[in-house]
């Protein structure tokens, strides 16, 4: 491994891991003495019914948001890169709007606009909350996918695929998608992280998701909060590793660019 790579990775490891180590050391303290050592904080988290319930809710929500985002954004961005390059800056601009609308404003607006909607949409997190999270994930999805599409030669791939007789859907799924795998995965990771971390909107819409549970513990249970931070970090990381694994299995063959 080259020297500069080693140095950079080492510095990064230091910056990113030390705070987690500090959190871990704090999570081992006893309530009675504020000193080492006890696993009570972890016991508190693992035996908490709320923890498992909200984790399940958020997990399902995350998969749903990723699926909707990919289905909505990948074809659109592909199409824009292929046929409508003038539209790209417009969409890039739209992608910044979610940053500007404070979550509180977004949720109040959405609750107002969709008040008359059917119960399965309005009263369930898998309806209105998922729809909103797709919008939140939009900037991250867009810029990731955009970078990915730039890195490949969309026109050549499409023409080649079509000249071999493939239809549009086949081209998209079996030729384009494997080539933007890294970008799609990156966008999916970010969407997953958003769902596991978004608090304000879920809170105001009165849904009981994992970040709500996280925030509550953060504000009330000192040692439990530290334990929970690390546990949720670990769980999200494991979820991403499994996404990575799934992605790798599907698209292992047709890599025409960036062979890593």
């Amino acid at each position: 491994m080259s020297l500069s790579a080693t140095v950079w990775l080492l510095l990064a490891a230091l910056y990113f891991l030390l705070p987690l180590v500090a959190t871990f050391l704090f999570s081992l303290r006893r309530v009675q003495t504020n000193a080492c050592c006890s696993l009570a904080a972890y016991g508190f988290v693992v035996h908490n019914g709320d923890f498992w319930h909200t984790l399940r809710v958020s997990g399902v929500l995350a998969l749903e948001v990723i699926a909707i985002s990919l289905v909505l954004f990948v074809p659109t961005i592909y199409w824009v890169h292929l046929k409508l390059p003038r539209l790209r800056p417009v969409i890039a601009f739209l992608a910044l709007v979610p940053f500007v609308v404070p979550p509180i404003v977004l949720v109040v607006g959405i609750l107002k606009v969709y008040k008359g909607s059917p119960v399965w949409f309005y009263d369930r997190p898998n309806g209105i909350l998922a729809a909103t999270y797709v919008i939140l994930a939009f900037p991250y999805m867009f810029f990731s996918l955009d970078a990915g599409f730039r890195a490949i030669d969309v026109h050549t791939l499409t023409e080649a695929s079509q000249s071999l007789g493939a239809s549009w859907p086949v081209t998209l799924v079996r030729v384009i998608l494997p080539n933007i795998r890294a970008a799609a995965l990156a966008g999916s990771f970010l969407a997953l992280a958003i769902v596991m971390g978004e608090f304000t909107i879920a809170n105001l819409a009165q849904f009981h998701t994992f970040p709500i549970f996280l925030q509550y513990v953060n504000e009330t249970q000192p040692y439990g909060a530290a334990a929970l931070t690390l546990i949720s970090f670990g769980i999200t990381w494991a979820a991403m590793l499994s996404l990575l694994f799934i992605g790798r299995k599907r698209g292992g063959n047709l890599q025409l660019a960036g062979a890593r």
Partner: protein
Amino acid sequence: MSGRRRLPLAWIATVPFFAYTVAFLFLPAGSVITGAFKSNSRGGGWTFSNVTTLFHEPYRHAYIVSIEVSAITAALGAVLGFAVAYAMIRDNTPRIFRGVITTFSGVAANFGGIPLAFAFIATIGPLGIVTVFLRNHGGYELNQHLPLFTQNGVEFVYLYFQIPLAILVIAPAIDGLKREWREAASNLGASSWQYWRHVGIPVLLPSMLGMFILLFGNAFAAYATAYALTTGVVPLIPILIGAYYQGNVLDNPHLAQAMAFGMFVVLAAMMVAYIPLQRRAQRWAK
């Protein structure tokens, strides 16, 4: 480029996308734009006063600080993120690093708020493990050079989610740097620096510009971490918006909406600057 005649049909494919954004973004967000110009007084009606208030203190200062923090962390995040991403992708690095770092980045990119603030307080705060270690082993007072509860401290902590975000976005673009170009360049006698200056960076520039915008927006909208660290002593616009819209003390939703409108203007200005820059950068890439 495919014939002009096909454009009308081609647009149809983007309809689902636009329909979705209108339904779930514009309709709800429209109230921000219109609300910014509504009056708080009993009669209702329209007014510019909310927006003109923004040019006075403390809002002006809050915008300046917000923009500073966002720009600095976006720039640093981009550069450092690129360095780490390149380090993990390049030839001699074992492949496992990429998977580990990419997934870790996915988690870290959304790690924020109280847990992140607390993690850093526990590391480099007044009683943090690093602070105490340096104090006991050499009498070095870390907080004198890196005080956590200041703007610089907030920026230092923000990098924890900015750098991973940069890594995730720039890595696919780095993949696009074909190995053959590097080989060709070195065959022609170019040094590493020359390769980057004439080939690498120009190719990556459009994506890096996009990444900068994303990082900027990401930091601009963030506030939970800064609030946990400084409760608004380092003034940021989203904190003020929260104070006026959902706190326990102040209550002025239209002013809050005006502030959000101001954020919108700032980001719009960035996009306006981004488009010509990106077009220029694109020329080099093709």
